[in-house]
């Protein structure tokens, strides 16, 4: 007997929807084993986590608060992954978005107050786009490996933000707290449920626009082609260098917007707590959603639920909040193992004697 793999002509739709769902269940089971070793009842723990994240409106609003930046960074990362550009720098782009937005909010207050919010978010997006643009240009022009450059720039961005809120931007009236002065109250991004804010609608609208652009426009199809078959794209006259740079500017802008919205709606200042790890969870979201913008919205809510549920765990039964991260980390393994079923047909053949 011998296992034979045959490449499928097209990816199986049913299997590619099933695989993420099964992967999630598998990661819960594996997480359950970790919990059992920690002398916690896995089932009870999951019920706590679920209630903590979705049990009532307040809990759900906190989940949304975390889901909004995850949606935007997840969309940004998916976009870059579509052209097989491994942008793992969403964290740094997010931090630059926060810095750019804070800069306008703090130092451009001569602007009319109604203009402050939109303009500051625009500057935040630009800052994120530039931060993603650096590795994009290095890749497009000199073929410099992007996984390393995007990741290294995360550390640089985080250290620069630290320099700002510990140094020149620190609030003199802040009792030594590492953070800037608060933004003007009129320029805050409004909330609608608990701390959940309008960023949600911005993220949803962007996801639908992206879905449309990627599937229905010429540019979107070119992007698909650069990702799937760069040689064919080149033959058809697609400018690949420009494609990479444009996609990455957009990808960075989305992560930048996530950071900008976070400071404009939640923190209301540039402070220590804005560095969150959202940019890394975004990688999981991109892969779980199979790079589909609409699916990314739902996966982001799920991932946010794991984070909020993890926090609840710490408060309710004293298990480390990192349990949420453990389950997230476990997600990709079954997902990756499952890809083989979407791309190959598996047959078991009887070995013939030669």
């Amino acid at each position, binding site marked *: 007997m011998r296992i034979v793999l045959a490449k499928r002509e097209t990816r199986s739709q049913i299997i590619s929807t099933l695989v993420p769902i099964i992967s999630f269940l598998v990661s819960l089971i594996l997480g359950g084993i970790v919990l059992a070793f920690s002398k916690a009842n896995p089932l009870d723990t999951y019920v706590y986590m679920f209630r903590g994240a979705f049990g009532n409106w307040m809990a759900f609003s906190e989940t949304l608060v975390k889901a909004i930046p995850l949606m935007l960074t997840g969309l940004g990362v998916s976009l870059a992954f579509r052209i097989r550009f491994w942008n793992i720098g969403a964290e740094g782009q997010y931090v630059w978005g926060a810095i750019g937005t804070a800069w306008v909010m703090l130092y451009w207050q001569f602007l009319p107050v109604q203009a402050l919010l939109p303009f500051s978010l625009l500057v935040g997006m630009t800052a994120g786009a530039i931060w993603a643009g650096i590795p994009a240009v290095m890749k497009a022009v000199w073929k*410099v490996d992007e996984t*390393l450059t995007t990741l290294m*720039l995360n*550390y*640089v961005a985080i250290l620069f933000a630290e320099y700002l809120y510990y140094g020149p931007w620190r609030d003199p009236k802040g009792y030594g707290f590492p953070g800037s002065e608060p933004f003007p109250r009129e320029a805050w991004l409004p909330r609608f449920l608990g701390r959940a804010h309008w960023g949600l609608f911005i993220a949803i609208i962007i996801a639908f626009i992206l879905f449309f652009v990627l599937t229905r426009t010429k540019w979107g199809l070119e992007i698909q082609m650069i990702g799937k078959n760069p040689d064919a794209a080149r033959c058809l006259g697609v400018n690949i260098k420009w494609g990479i740079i444009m996609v990455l500017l957009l990808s960075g802008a989305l992560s930048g917007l996530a950071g900008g919205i976070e400071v404009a709606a939640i923190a209301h200042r540039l402070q220590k707590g804005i560095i969150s790890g959202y940019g890394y969870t975004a*990688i999981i979201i991109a892969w779980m959603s199979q790079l589909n913008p609409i699916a990314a919205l739902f996966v982001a809510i799920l991932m946010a639920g794991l984070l909020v549920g993890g926090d609840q765990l710490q408060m309710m039964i004293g298990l480390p909040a990192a349990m949420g*991260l453990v389950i997230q980390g476990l997600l990709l393994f079954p997902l*990756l*193992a499952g*890809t083989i079923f979407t791309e190959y047909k598996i047959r078991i053949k009887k070995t013939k004697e030669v």
Partner: protein
Amino acid sequence: MQLITTLLLVTIRAGTSLLYATLGEVYTERSGILNLGVEGMMMMGALTAFTVVYRTGNLLFGVLAAMLAGGCMALLHAFLSVSMRANQVVSGLSLTLFGTGFASYLGQRLGPAENSFNLTGLTGERFPIIKIPFLGDIPVLSAFLQQDVLTYLLYIIVPLAWFYLYRTRDGLSLRSVGENPRTAAAVGINVTKIRYTYTVLGGMLVGLGGAHLTLAYTPGWSENITGGRGWIVIALVIFSGWNPARAVFGAILFGGINAVQYRMQAAGTVIPASFLNMAPYLLTVIVLAAMTILSRKKKTSFSSPSALGTSFSIEDK
């Protein structure tokens, strides 16, 4: 002279974990498997090493446990990228995400009850610094001879690793699998077996590098102890041109940055600490760009294994 000796001393100490992990990843990538999980494997290595030593008081057990942890994670990567033909970039990233998350969880779980199950802030056995008599008093040279056992071990491992890769039959098979698995398979080399073996071996060395962090360099566990070292290792592999001997220079360069940075901070410079801390990350980006630009024209001794990051199967045409 005293200053040079001190700087070199700290450089070597800081470079040890980097060099172990770089050697490991060089071997993995030579087989054609790209494992971006170094950061996660190092983190888990650091955690298991410290936990085991804290519990048993035996340094050897700690080192072995770290190698086991790194090896198991690498085995998972080998399974996904060789047998399941998964995307190696994403598989490596997941190892890093999982490793950092799991280490953070275990770090708050495996400690003693009186420290509320936390490992942070505890002290355990550590590798002592052994000074070689007589030779250890010669200026500059003494920097190499006042180190811990794990560092001394490297003085033997590096030449061996080089010799094995370039001067033995097994090393030749390994390199040919990374260059052209189809040809290698045609002459009867078992590509799958080689890729599994060296991915796991690489993971064990990466885990060992992590162990050096918690057992010698900065003894004790703290969250985020690796601080991006695993990623610097990925860059060091490229700088070394996938050559174990040249990996030494990269490890010394980056260990040296750590030493200088530490020195400058202690001396109290006008440059804010944040900017000093950026140095290794910025330097990685700059050197990486320079290396890529210099070696992109033709295949040189600095070029990557041709089949790096691609899956292979005999049935594929």
